[in-house]
């Protein structure tokens, strides 16, 4: 493991280090190797032998300087802390509005919208068993619904992130609302979360709607449209979260995500878009697991690799394109149903890893998130965790405070090598699109998930309250907040009435235009989605039309 060993001129180093090694071995005879989740063996101690900093400028540099290992901005959190972006969504648009306004009143500058699962499936509220509606997100199927959801929300000054997979109907509804309110589209800021169809195809079947080639087409149209009409909107968020949650190791996750970003960038370039114009709007979205140092090394290595990819491989000239902007969400996978209050400790550690990694925005899970939709109180604790870490623990005071740690630097190098190996494997398979299409990525993830599960079962990996330190408890799952069935019924009835009463001609024309665009190389599908939204076409109708024209999405599942 000493291939990177440094020849040290330090007098007495060899002798002291040898002495320590023998003292150590006496105390922990027969020790088994310790590995992190990515399979890297972790040594009991790191020293200048592992990292001596002679490549400081090449490998680390200063914050805001290539390769950005220490941070993408010169002042990082000391200048501007991360954005606190908590995902919310439940019930009817009116229910959502009550909650989002409370958040804005409390000072939030960024909001999110999580649509109902029926929306993720690409269908409208009148096509679903009503007991399922609004149970894990807000039912938004039309521009009117969005108008109600965003009533009193200052579009144009507040940043909105919507979980809005292809064909991005929620953004289309939002643009319709902006038009009604006379708000200049160019002032609208935010991100199309869940625009990364490859990650959905691989690991999140919930978000997968259109065929793989169809999704590819619509995303490119979407990016093109947004770059033209919405200069402050991030049309693409490349998502590592689903893959890590499905079982990919942190190193695999970063490798897959960067491979996806390469694929999207190359697709844009092939389309004739300007790489510098497009890449500056790329953002990333990751899970932060409780594997503390490994996560920090994952993000530091990811920043460095992305900078290199963007500059060398993709040829972007603008330094803004080299910056690896990411949102982190503390991982729900690490949370347990057993002794749920323990999750507050877990989320704190995850959030610390995220902050020390230099993330740009963060969602901290509520401690009951693994088992329920967070209640107002648990959501407040989640936000408080961020505030405590920032203001009481002063984690923002120093930029990249772990930089220069023998261990963290060595681990960053090792993670970088692991991630590069994953990228090379995906390259060899013909890129991320092909690797996903043939199931290579799914197979790799499946193997890692099973290996992790086996480590839990053998006790090699411990989870407090699950495979060790169990206590006698009544493993209750708290009652879930369910939307008011009467209100939901009225919502569905109003929706049906809306469909009856709208201009059927306009709807038919808009759907026809959408279908034609889907079959024409020259037209922009997303532009037609925006127009259809304004004509009163519903979410389910638009997705349905594109499924007919571009193919239904069937995720590849490897048994």
């Amino acid at each position, binding site marked *: 493991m000493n291939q990177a060993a440094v020849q040290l001129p330090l007098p007495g180093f060899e002798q002291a280090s040898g002495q320590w090694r023998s003292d150590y071995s006496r105390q922990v005879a027969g020790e088994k190797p310790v590995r992190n989740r990515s399979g890297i063996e972790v040594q009991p101690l790191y020293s200048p032998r592992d990292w001596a900093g002679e490549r400081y400028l090449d490998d680390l540099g200063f914050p805001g300087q290539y390769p950005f290992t220490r941070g993408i901005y010169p002042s990082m959190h000391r200048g501007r802390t991360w954005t606190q972006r908590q995902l919310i969504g439940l019930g009817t648009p009116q229910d959502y509005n009550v909650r989002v306004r409370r958040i804005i009143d409390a000072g939030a500058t960024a909001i999110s919208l999580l649509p109902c699962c029926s929306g993720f499936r690409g269908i409208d509220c009148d096509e679903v068993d009503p007991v399922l509606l609004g149970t894990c997100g807000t039912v938004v199927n039309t521009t009117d619904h969005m108008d109600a959801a965003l009533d009193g929300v200052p579009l144009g000054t507040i940043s909105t992130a919507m979980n809005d997979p292809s064909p991005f109907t929620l953004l289309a509804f939002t643009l319709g609302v902006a038009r009604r309110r006379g708000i200049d589209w160019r002032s609208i800021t935010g991100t199309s979360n869940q625009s990364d169809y490859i990650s959905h195809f691989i690991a999140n079947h919930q978000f997968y709607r259109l065929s793989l080639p169809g999704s590819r087409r619509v995303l490119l149209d979407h990016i093109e449209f947004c770059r033209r009409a919405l200069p402050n909107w991030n049309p693409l968020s490349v998502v590592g979260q689903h893959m890590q949650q499905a079982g990919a190791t942190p190193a695999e996750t970063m490798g897959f995500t960067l491979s996806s970003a390469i694929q999207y960038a190359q697709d844009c370039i092939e389309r004739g878009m300007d790489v510098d114009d497009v890449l500056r709007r790329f953002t990333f979205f990751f899970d932060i697991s409780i594997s503390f140092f490994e996560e920090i090394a994952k993000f530091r290595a990811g920043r460095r690799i992305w900078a290199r990819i963007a500059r060398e491989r993709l040829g972007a000239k603008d330094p803004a394109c080299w910056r690896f902007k990411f949102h982190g969400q503390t991982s729900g996978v690490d949370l347990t149903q057993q002794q749920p209050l323990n999750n507050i400790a877990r989320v704190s550690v995850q959030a610390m890893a995220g902050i020390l990694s230099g993330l740009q925005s963060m969602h901290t899970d509520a401690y009951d998130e693994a088992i329920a939709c967070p209640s107002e109180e648990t959501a407040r604790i989640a936000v408080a965790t961020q505030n405590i870490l920032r203001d009481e623990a002063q984690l923002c005071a120093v930029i990249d405070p772990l930089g220069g740690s023998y261990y963290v630097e060595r681990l960053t190098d090792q993670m970088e090598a692991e991630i590069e190996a994953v990228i090379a494997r995906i390259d060899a398979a013909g890129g991320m699109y092909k690797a996903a299409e*043939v199931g290579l990525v799914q197979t790799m993830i499946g193997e890692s998930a099973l290996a992790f599960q086996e480590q839990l079962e053998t006790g090699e990996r411990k989870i407090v309250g699950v495979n060790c330190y169990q206590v006698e408890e009544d493993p209750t799952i708290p009652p879930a907040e369910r939307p008011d069935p009467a209100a939901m019924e009225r919502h569905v009835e109003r929706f049906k009435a809306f469909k009856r009463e709208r201009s059927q001609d306009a709807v038919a024309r808009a759907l026809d235009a959408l279908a034609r665009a889907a079959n024409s190389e020259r037209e922009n599908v997303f532009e037609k989605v925006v127009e259809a939204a304004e004509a009163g076409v519903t979410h389910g109708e638009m997705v349905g039309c594109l499924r007919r024209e571009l*193919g239904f999405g*069937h995720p590849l*599942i*490897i*048994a």
Partner: protein
Amino acid sequence: MAPSPSPIPLAQRLRAGDPRAVARAISLMEEGGSAAAALHAAILPATGRALTIGFTGPPGAGKSTLVDAFVAELRKSGRTVGVVAVDPSSPLSGGAVLGDRIRMGRHTDDPGVFIRSIASRGHLGGLSRSIHHVVDVLDAAGRDAIVIETVGAGQSEVEIVDVAAVRIVVNAPGLGDDVQAIKAGILEIASILVVNKADLPLAPRTVRQLKAMLSLRREGEADVPVLETIASEDRGVAELLAAVDACATLRPEDAAARRRTRIRRLVAEGAAGEMRRRILAWDDAAFLETLARAARGEIDIDTAARAAMEAQAGGVPLPVAVPQKADRRAG
């Protein structure tokens, strides 16, 4: 629990196409034993009508996806379909994850398609031990076409010749060392060769290689068509069905011969199994002495085997008398 209050005989119910009865009958065939044998005998007269089509080929060729698309095409032609999808069992636990359903999603609401997943249970040849019986059940249940998808194990899949009138060997570009993934033995049983995923860049090369291999191995025989499909987009599937139908109508006299061979093979297999079971449980003194002599090397194993078989089989002259109670079944 008490039996059903007014039980209609399973054979009758399955011949009427009742899906529950068909499913139960297949389970019974998988279980084996005298009840299975009796049921098989009862339905055998009603078999032989269905067109049987086998799909085989290496893993990753896209067999399940192609079967899914092919079944849709069969449905378009107005035929009812039975699908038997064979997956490997784990050699360690004997369990199996039968995942063919994953790629056969489009028929979940169509009563005209009956899909049954079967585990190979360690049976060599990519099929299941009970495959003939299972196919007969679907045949007797009136399915117009029966599609058999085998484990793409690539070893001695010649068995499928007995089960399926039309054998489709599926390959895809870039699997392993080109067409080496297709073993010579499999090539010989093919009625039709398919290169799936024909949009992949290496597809034309795979097609050329297959044609070259065919010209070497099948000289003088009827042409085996080599078709290209993109199953995930339903492309080439209508052409595949046309080729299957052409192949099935080509030599009707083959059907009768195939059926006789099939029955002969089933009898041979059954006889072997029965003999094995009997000899393993036999503790007659004379036989034990034979074993001891074989152990001492005084007689060779083959001689001992023949002696044991003849002793076991002795005294039961052929043909077998029809058991009396068989008459009771009529009506």
